[in-house]
């Protein structure tokens, strides 16, 4: 006897089966679609950033009368920038291409306009749709039928590629960034364990005061000023500083930093300080896509393709290039001249001496290196100085502590160069004949000319009751904070990390007061803001005064 199955039970079974089938059908439909979207977006990203089509062939763009461009030259990122917020150069305006901008109408009525679309936004335009955007990219026609600017190339993309690009644009700079909350911007400063304790504290004093001063301007909800809608108070978020003190071996620093970032997400790293090694911090910022602005380091990492790290200058490496340039121009008797370098094996002079070797050995100079070990004193090594002849060049990559150990009389007639950055600039502890013979590298503005440039920061320190204990560290930290503040203010509500770097690239050279630096300037692919220096001689009087030996030098040797 077959079991009797009630009719409704059968219906139930069929309903269940139907349900399972439909769930599967839905899953089958959705899952690949989701996977396809993700793939599309990454293809769009490759196209935007590298100018590479999904077929791995180079992207091609066309302009009437100017032929075609291809590959990375044709990539959107060139003009619209990594953030997608665009840029301006002279009268050329490259509008943003983020979704918020493209898919909303733009009006000329200022009170109806929100400022969240980058500084290069163009007013008076209807919203794009996917279809009109595709037409704009293919045919160069805006949503209202007006032709786009001549600078915008035309791209013949197939439908799938176009969809992937538009999918990418819809995600570009669209998410809230780490370190930004409704009322606070979080920043970190990073301190390496071998930092000079006085300079470290000096830097922290300036940062604390700068952040506190900034926060006195904070107003959580200020209504628009009546009748002046363009004057909007923008200090809508407090600044909070996180001090990340590193410990132990440099090999462990990156892990320490990744861990800190998990618990304290920050928008950017500002200033910071290290003794010898900054590389792990540089790499961390690059890996995490965190802007790292203007740390107090004399040995930066030279890798200008790394977008996220910006330095004041190449530090001691710039000094090595200044000496190389001078030696190659002036000595000229390369077959006889030797270059003798003295440095501590465990200090940044070791890298500087290597840089000098690279710049002079290929043109025939002989280089002799004297590396002092941890137990060695300069006195015990002074013999090599006696052997240095008139045609030779001796370069001292030493700190004041070592320089104080030089013999009282100069035992050689060789040309003598000292690293100003390591030796203490105009305060380098040299006396007697050493003062007369020494040529000092000086990759900063000269003391008498910078006096005016320092007026403002030094006045601010007095007003804030900050003791001046490490003038350069403090002024550089102040300048770094000012640059961050100006650029962040210019970003309005587009608080995107990449955009902070782009604003820094664009705006830095328009600053006039940069403390110790004659000029600062960057652009896409430039990561060292001050590019030259002087060779100076000390006053004989023993006072901290210097005279430039010739003009400002921008090293240009290969």
């Amino acid at each position, binding site marked *: 006897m077959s079991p009797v199955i009630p009719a409704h039970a059968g219906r139930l079974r069929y309903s269940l089966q139907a349900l399972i089938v439909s769930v599967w059908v839905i899953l089958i439909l959705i899952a690949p679609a989701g996977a396809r979207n993700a793939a599309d977006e990454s293809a769009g990203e490759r196209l935007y950033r590298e100018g590479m089509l999904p077929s791995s062939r180079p992207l091609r763009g066309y*302009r*009437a*009368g*100017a*032929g075609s*461009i291809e590959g990375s*030259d044709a990539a959107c990122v*060139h*003009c619209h*920038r990594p953030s997608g917020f665009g*840029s*301006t*150069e*002279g*009268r*050329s305006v*490259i509008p943003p291409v983020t979704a918020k901008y493209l898919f909303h109408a733009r009006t000329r009525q200022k009170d109806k306009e929100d400022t969240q679309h980058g500084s290069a936004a163009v007013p008076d335009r209807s919203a794009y749709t996917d279809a009109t955007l595709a037409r704009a990219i293919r045919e*160069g026609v805006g949503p209202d039928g*007006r*032709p*786009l*600017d*001549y*600078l915008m190339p035309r791209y013949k993309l197939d439908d799938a590629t176009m969809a992937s690009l538009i999918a990418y644009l819809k995600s570009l700079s669209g998410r809230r960034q780490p370190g930004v909350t409704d009322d606070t911007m979080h920043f970190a400063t990073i301190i390496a364990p071998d930092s000079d304790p006085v300079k470290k504290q000096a830097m922290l004093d300036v940062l604390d005061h700068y952040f506190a001063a900034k926060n006195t301007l904070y107003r959580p909800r200020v209504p628009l000023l009546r009748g002046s809608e363009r004057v909007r108070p923008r200090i809508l978020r407090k600044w909070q500083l996180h001090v990340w003190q590193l410990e132990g071996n440099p090999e462990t620093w990156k892990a320490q930093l990744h861990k800190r970032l998990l618990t304290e997400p920050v928008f950017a790293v500002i200033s910071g300080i290290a003794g010898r090694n900054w590389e792990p911090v540089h790499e961390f910022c690059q890996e995490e896509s965190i802007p790292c602005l203007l740390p107090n380091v004399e040995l930066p990492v030279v890798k200008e393709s790394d977008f996220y790290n910006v330095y004041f200058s190449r530090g001691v490496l710039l000094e090595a290039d200044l000496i190389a340039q001078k030696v190659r121009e002036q000595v000229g008797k390369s077959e006889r001249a030797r270059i003798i370098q003295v440095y501590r094996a465990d200090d940044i002079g070791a890298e500087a001496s290597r840089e000098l070797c690279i710049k002079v050995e290929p043109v025939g100079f002989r280089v002799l290196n004297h590396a002092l070990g941890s137990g060695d004193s300069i006195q015990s090594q002074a013999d090599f100085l006696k052997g240095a002849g008139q045609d030779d060049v001796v370069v001292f990559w030493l700190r004041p502590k070592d320089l104080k150990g030089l013999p009282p009389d100069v035992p050689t007639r060789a040309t003598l160069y000292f690293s100003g950055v390591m030796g203490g600039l105009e305060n380098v502890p040299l006396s007697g004949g050493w003062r007369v013979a020494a040529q000092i590298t000086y990759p900063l503005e000269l003391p008498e000319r910078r006096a005016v440039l320092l007026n403002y920061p030094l006045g601010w320190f007095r007003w804030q009751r900050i003791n001046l204990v490490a003038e350069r560290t403090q002024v550089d930290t102040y300048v770094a904070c000012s640059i961050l503040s100006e650029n962040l203010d210019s970003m309005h509500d587009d608080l995107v990390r990449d955009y902070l770097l782009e604003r820094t690239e*664009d*705006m830095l*050279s*328009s600053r006039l007061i940069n403390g110790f630096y004659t*000029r600062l*300037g960057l*652009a*896409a*692919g*430039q990561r060292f803001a001050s*590019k*030259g220096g002087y060779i100076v001689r000390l006053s004989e009087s023993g006072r901290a005064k210097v005279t430039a030996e010739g*003009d*400002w030098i*921008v*090293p*240009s040797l*290969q």
Partner: protein
Amino acid sequence: MKSRLRYVSEFLMLVAAGVMAGSVRGSEPAVIRSNVQYAVPQITLVRQDGKSVFLPKELDDGRPVVMNFVFTTCGTICPLLSQTFERLQSKLGADRDRVHIVSITIDPEEDTPQRLTEYAKRYNAGPGWQHYTGTLKAIVATERAFNVYRGDKMSHTPVTLLRLAPGRPWVRFDGFVTADELAREIRSEVAAAK
């Protein structure tokens, strides 16, 4: 006085260019062509091969001169300006090196001779096309002499200058002049010189 008048007239033309650009922002570039007298500044620049050269002598080598102002890390307008010179060289064909093409950097501290050499290679510059840098002072003075100085490099505007022979006036193009247009202007002069 004369120079002030020149600036005023150039300003008016730029305004006109702006109006034109506003109305036809489009598929064909809006270019303003004008004839201008410039005194070549008595200045020494550094060529991409590292050699210091006296600018008047460098420009007065008897050949027609086509000149622009670029910088190597510029992502917006310079690639198009340099591409125009690349196309101009290929359009000139056998006459390529009878025309002296001059690109002067407006970012001299970054653009060392080495960087300029690499940049020139990127645009397949033939021997007739040289890039120049110099001290910041020399570069600013050169920019001022040709009325292209706009302060910061981010205020850079596209300008191309053409002089068919020493002593002749300069033809100034504000905007993106095409290689065809430049080739047309030069060709008669090159043919006459043969």
